């Protein structure tokens, strides 16, 4: 037995949520060639299968690009701190890709490692995630290479599997998912299915080892030559979570805000003394791969990557993790266990 729901049913669900003053987000077409996850203003705006993957990720709804941590008010020589008590509104994310939903459990590790990040967790608990299994993919997708699949359910409260002509099978995964779809589905015996994911592009386990063994290999410098050092890959990535803390305000008071940051920018590691451990773009790009495929797995047993391919699609220089990782794999195969005698990375 399976549960199904029609596109009209989904739109009615959105209308209901919006009516109750809650937020609904999903992929919408922003202009001719850009589709992004954004808050919906109407049910019709939702674009279930308009593209392979929207330009951004649902990370924005648990860690926004710019977020107030707390307020400070200067009173003469004293200061008063006002905490950000406002509880984030309940939000339904509809039509997200499985590789975006899978990113959230991965991020839960770092945001609850020893110190529990209240802002992240409050937003995370307020989310209900209904993903749509992928029926389309492009050369940038490599979710299969990191252990995911077009119909992966990690991180989703419910998964919609297309049955054709606007009918979807609903596979609830969590009580939240069941509560959401309770009474809205019609039982049926049709089973949805999706085409197999992209062929495995690289072996994640092997790459994880190669990164340390090839740490000084010239492949990093060659791959990074075309990189222009912007933050498009990091900001489009569902799992990149690095941030900066800045003050915004004036003599009388203001806010301390958390903003997105990226290890691709030179200022990320610049010491006050002027020394910069990662001066060249090659070392910065290696750091990003090293953090995703070696450090994070070593600490939290999961790759900090869901293979969504946004870094490939969004890179203005036509790079992205895929080409770097495949290049590492070839370099690794060509010169096994070449302990770092190469010249130092700049």
């Amino acid at each position, binding site marked *: 037995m399976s549960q199904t729901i029609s596109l009209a049913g989904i739109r009615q669900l959105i209308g209901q949520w919006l009516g109750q003053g809650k937020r609904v987000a999903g992929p919408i077409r922003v202009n001719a060639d850009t589709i992004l996850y954004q808050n919906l203003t109407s049910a019709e705006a939702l674009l279930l299968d308009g593209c392979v993957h929207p330009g951004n990720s649902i990370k924005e*709804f648990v860690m*926004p*690009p*710019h977020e*107030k941590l707390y307020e400070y008010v200067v009173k003469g020589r004293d200061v008063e701190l006002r905490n950000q008590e406002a509880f984030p509104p309940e939000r339904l994310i509809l039509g997200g890709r499985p590789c975006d939903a899978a990113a959230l459990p991965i991020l839960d590790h770092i945001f609850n490692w020893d110190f529990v990040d209240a802002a992240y967790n409050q937003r995370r608990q307020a989310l209900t995630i209904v993903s749509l299994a992928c029926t389309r993919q492009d050369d940038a997708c490599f979710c299969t290479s990191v252990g995911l699949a077009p119909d992966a359910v990690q991180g989703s409260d419910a998964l919609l599997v297309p049955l054709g002509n606007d009918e979807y099978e609903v596979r609830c995964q969590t009580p939240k998912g069941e509560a959401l779809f309770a009474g809205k589905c019609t039982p049926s015996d049709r089973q949805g299915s999706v085409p197999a994911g992209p062929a495995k592009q690289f072996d994640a386990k092997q790459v994880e080892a190669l990164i340390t063994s090839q740490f000084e290999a010239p492949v990093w410098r060659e791959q990074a030559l075309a990189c222009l050092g912007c933050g498009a890959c990091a900001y489009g990535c569902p799992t990149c979570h690095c941030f900066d803390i800045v003050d915004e305000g004036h003599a009388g008071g203001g806010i301390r*805000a958390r903003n997105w940051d990226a290890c691709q920018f030179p200022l990320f590691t610049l010491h006050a003394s002027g020394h910069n451990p990662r001066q060249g773009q090659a070392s910065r790009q290696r750091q990003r791969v090293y953090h995703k495929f070696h450090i994070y797995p070593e600490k939290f047993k999961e790759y900090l990557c869901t293979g969504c391919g946004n870094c490939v699609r969004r890179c203005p220089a036509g790079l992205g993790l895929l080409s770097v990782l495949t290049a590492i794999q070839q370099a690794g195969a060509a010169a096994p266990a070449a302990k770092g005698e190469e010249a130092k990375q700049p």
Partner: protein
Amino acid sequence: MSAHPTGVFEPKVIAYVCNWCTYLGADLAGTSRLEYPANVRIVRLPCTGRIDFNLLIKGFEVGADAILVSGCHPGDCHYTSGNFHARRRWILFRQLLDTMGFDMNRIHFAWISAAEGKKFQHVLTDIVEQTRRMGPYAAYSKICEEVSC
């Protein structure tokens, strides 16, 4: 500037002026007791050439309802060419502000020499009255308060 107790809207006007001409023009308006509204806050800079375009944006960010940029007449600049550079910069920057949708009636440029106390009075009074009629520049101040998500 919040509204004056009588409820009349008191526009906040910031004036970026050059030290050698317009600032002295304002001094002359003072010594000649030429009255004008108290809404303007004068920021003294050595030359109009020194006034960079970010200062206009910062002025609107701190809630100015109108901004005046004024300095020596072309040819009179104490540093010979500061005002020529400024003029060329404003010719281009005004187009950008216009494209971005800034309210061009809130951005004023003037040449006021050290001998033109009267002109300083007229320009200021005119700007304040015109801005008072237009009301506060809510469009941009709303942009500055809003914290996304």
